[in-house]
Every structure is written in C-alpha cells, then in structure tokens.
C-alpha cells in the first residue's frame, strides 16, 4: 500500500524541479506564480509522506497550513501582477527591471 519513502522523495524532487524549470525558462508572471506553487506542493508531498513514515499526523496537519500560506502568497502575487500590468501594459517579468517608472 505504501511505496518506499524514496519514491515519494523522487516524486517531490520531480515536482520541485519542474517548478524551478518554469521559473528559469518563462517570462510570464502568471506562470511564475504557478511554478512557485509547484515548488510549495513538492514540500507538501514530503510532509505527507514522512507523516506516514513516522506514524504521526503532525506532517499532514502542517501541510494544511502550508496550503493556506500558499493561498495567501497567490493573493498577494496576483495583486502584484495586476499592478505590473497597470504600469507596464504587460506581465513580462523581464520588462519590470526598475523599481520606479
């Protein structure tokens, strides 16, 4: 029923690296948000897997809090993207190279 912990770690590393790949290759700010979300969810996979590994429910509970924090992060991120679009008429992150306009 439970795969070996290595399998979960490799899955989580894959999800995390997909997130890093997205951050490094994309310019769209919305895709940046999605990539960061993938990286956060990779951490959640580890928390849940090791929660079962130690027979303790702390990891699962903590992963719920991580999800709530991810929601807060996305709320702020989308707000920032709105301001970015308003000021630069684009959401290309390479456009916004200065802090003032």
């Amino acid at each position, binding site marked *: 029923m*439970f795969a*070996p*912990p*290595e399998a979960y*770690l*490799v899955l989580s*590393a*894959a999800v*995390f*690296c*997909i997130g*890093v*790949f997205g951050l*490094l*290759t*994309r310019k769209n700010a919305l895709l940046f948000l999605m990539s960061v979300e993938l990286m956060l969810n990779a951490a959640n996979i580890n928390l849940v897997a090791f929660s*079962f*590994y*130690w*027979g*303790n*429910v*702390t990891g*699962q*509970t*903590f992963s*719920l*809090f991580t999800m*709530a*924090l991810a*929601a*807060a*992060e996305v*709320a*702020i991120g*989308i*707000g*920032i993207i*709105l*301001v970015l679009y*308003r000021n630069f008429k684009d959401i290309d992150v390479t456009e916004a190279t200065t802090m003032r306009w």
Partner: protein
Amino acid sequence: MSDDPNDGSRPRLKRDFNPVPGLAAVALFAVLALVFLQASFGEAQGFEQGASITASIGYAMFNIDAGAISGAVVSGEGFVVAFVLIAVALDVAIDGAVFLAKSEDEEGGIGAVLTDGGREIREKLRGGDD
C-alpha cells in the same frame, strides 16, 4: 506558438524558450534523485490500524487531548497557535490583495467598476431624466 490563423486557438506547449537555464533544473533533479535513491530509509512505521486520519488532524489542529477521545487516534502536536497565526496571515493577504488591486483613480474613473448598475453613467449621458 503557431502562426497559422486557421489552426484554432487551442492551448499549445510553449516551445520558443531558451532551454539552457532549464538544464540547471534538470541537473538539480538528477542530483536529488541520485541522493534519494541511494539513501536507506527502512520500513515505514505507518498509522495505527483503524484510526481516523481526518479526525486525528482535527484533534491535532485544535490541541484536543487525544486521551479524552474514544477510539484510535494518531498522535500529533498541537497546532492551534499556528492556526491563529495563519488566519491572521490570510487576513493580511486579502487586505494586501485588495489594496494592490485598487486603482489610484478609484472614484469616477473610466476603468472603475460599475457598482450602481450604470445609473451614474446613464444620468450623465441623458441629463438625469428618464
């Protein structure tokens, strides 16, 4: 992206990106997978037989003493302080999102949201009489 206008507007995989920085991510995955597969973990302890995980998460989240509950409960730490902190963080986040989304020329601007059903614009255009 395809330039063919007859190709419809279905979503496509983006192919015109620079793949060189992405190699760093692939290399990172290779290193991580190598390390994880060589590590030895042993047998997983697993949860107690017949214990309700959902109920156990609830007990852990609100610091409810598992000794007072009948039936099997998976042990965990108390999280009620973290719960309140996250609640405050979410509250601040939604306030921040609203603050950022508000445009500077909020009142009367062309881009302002029509919260009165367009009555104000109609009265402006027609001079008020219906």
